């Protein structure tokens, strides 16, 4: 693939998709995580089990869902369970290997906010809220996070913790006795951040092609730590780009007609 024959948004989804393996059982958030998880299923991880909080177990959508409960998800699922069963047996019961989350905001310890910005009672921005994210973040064996890089999204301290990453860093997550091990990677449109093994603060470990370390530091709302040897992300393959563009096109066509 020639350099820059793709957008950074496309690259973000492709890099995020590579984090998933064929053996994973993945609880998928709507939006960017859903795009990445389905791309993984349609490329290198055909047997991955995708689960959405609406109750669909092992779903294989042909187009990307606009909502977490689209008919496309239940029509192509192995099984559809009730929402209480989903959260009690499957998530709380420890049957999920990977949680894949997006967010409006993230802090340096990978805590997430999708609830409100500013004072809770008189917010600057009222966001949709938690959905399934808090217990995905605490109960999935491991967590991947994907969101676009900006100083509005990457903030030193959150006004509201919707979902816990490593709380205040160090062993503060361990002290909560959560079943899951927490965020492993944060994949953005500029690079990849990973928690330091001891302090749990996010460290820049990969830079996407055509992006500089300085650019990423400028798009981060705290003094971002940079790994001693930052790696360059592998650019998208022709196959990855083709599959991603195909499913996005199918989705666009499906959403454009007044479907009766």
């Amino acid at each position, binding site marked *: 693939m020639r350099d820059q024959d793709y957008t950074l948004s496309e690259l973000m989804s492709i890099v995020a998709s590579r984090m998933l393996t064929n053996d994973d059982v993945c609880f998928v958030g709507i939006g960017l995580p859903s795009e990445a998880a389905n791309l993984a299923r349609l490329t290198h991880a055909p047997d991955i089990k995708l689960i959405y909080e609406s109750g669909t177990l092992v779903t294989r959508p042909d187009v990307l869902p606009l909502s977490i409960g689209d008919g496309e998800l239940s029509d192509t699922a192995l099984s559809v369970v009730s929402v209480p069963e989903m959260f009690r047996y499957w998530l709380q019961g420890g049957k999920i290997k990977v949680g894949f989350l997006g967010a409006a905001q993230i802090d340096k310890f990978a805590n997430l906010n999708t609830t409100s910005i500013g004072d809770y009672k008189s917010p600057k921005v009222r966001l949709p809220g938690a959905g399934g994210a808090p217990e995905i973040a605490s109960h999935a064996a491991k967590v991947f996070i994907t969101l676009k890089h900006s100083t509005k999204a990457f903030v030193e301290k959150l006004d509201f913790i919707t979902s816990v990453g490593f709380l205040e860093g160090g062993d503060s997550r361990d002290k909560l006795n959560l079943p899951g091990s927490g965020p492993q990677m944060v994949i953005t449109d500029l690079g990849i951040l990973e928690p330091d093994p001891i302090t749990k603060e996010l460290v820049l470990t990969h830079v996407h092609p055509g992006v500089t370390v300085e650019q990423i530091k400028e798009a981060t709302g705290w003094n971002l730590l940079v790994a001693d040897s930052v790696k360059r992300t592998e650019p998208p393959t022709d196959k990855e780009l083709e599959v991603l563009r195909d499913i996005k096109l199918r989705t666009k066509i499906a*959403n454009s007609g007044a479907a009766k």
Partner: protein
Amino acid sequence: MTEILKLDEAIKKYVKPGEALALEGFTHLIPNAAGLEIIRQGIKGLTLIRMTPDLIYDQLIGMGCADKMVFSWGGNPGVGSLHRFREAYEKKIPKTIEIEEHAHAAMANAYVAGASGLPFAVMDGYKGTSYPEINKNIKTIECPFTGQELTAIRALNPDVTIVHAQRADKEGNVWLDGIIGVQKEAILAAKKAIVTVEEIVDHVDEKTGGTVIPNWVIDAVCEVPHGAFPSYASGYYKRNNNFYLSWDAISRDYAKFQDWMKEFVLETKDFAEFYKKLEQENYA
């Protein structure tokens, strides 16, 4: 015994000002027709309970029917904000709205507790999050056997739960299939229950799949074809994603919203007329 009623009769009989209502539906089978009938009848002072409030709660809030919303994710899925809810909460337009906010796991558990005759649910959740600080119905509890710290959530018991389903039989047994969300629990947790259905048939059972909710826990069944629109009824019609996209523009400005609601909801006599008008104006 379950009565087969017209929707306006059922709403008039069972939904009273000041009550706590759950109009449940998880993307699928959202009881939109019932919500619009509540708006037509001008029933106010309501507490609106739902895990995923979307367009119908935006409409009820914008029309001033709600004093409070209990929820775990409030948005127009895949599109953006609920503008009427946000303006009510952020700017008190048309009036103040109180909120009680949860995560999905807690709210699903709260319905299960309500359906099970328990005062609270036990779960392992919310640890490290800000939710216990803003919701007094989240408490910590110790397991009497292991000493493990767990979370207690006050049960949800709506005064009235309303859901939409694909079919009911003439005795009022209800059958639904596809994404079933938390509908069964919401009905069993409620003091009264109304179900709107796509069609009333001779007989329903689970032999070829689906879920049946028996009639003695349902007070009224109303036949309302397309009653979930713009949500969907699996096997009948698809989700109208275009309408969800259109709602963003209709609802963004309060005056425009009011005009639209007047023209399409208040000036149509029932859901059938509303739906016909949507078709004529290329919304449906």
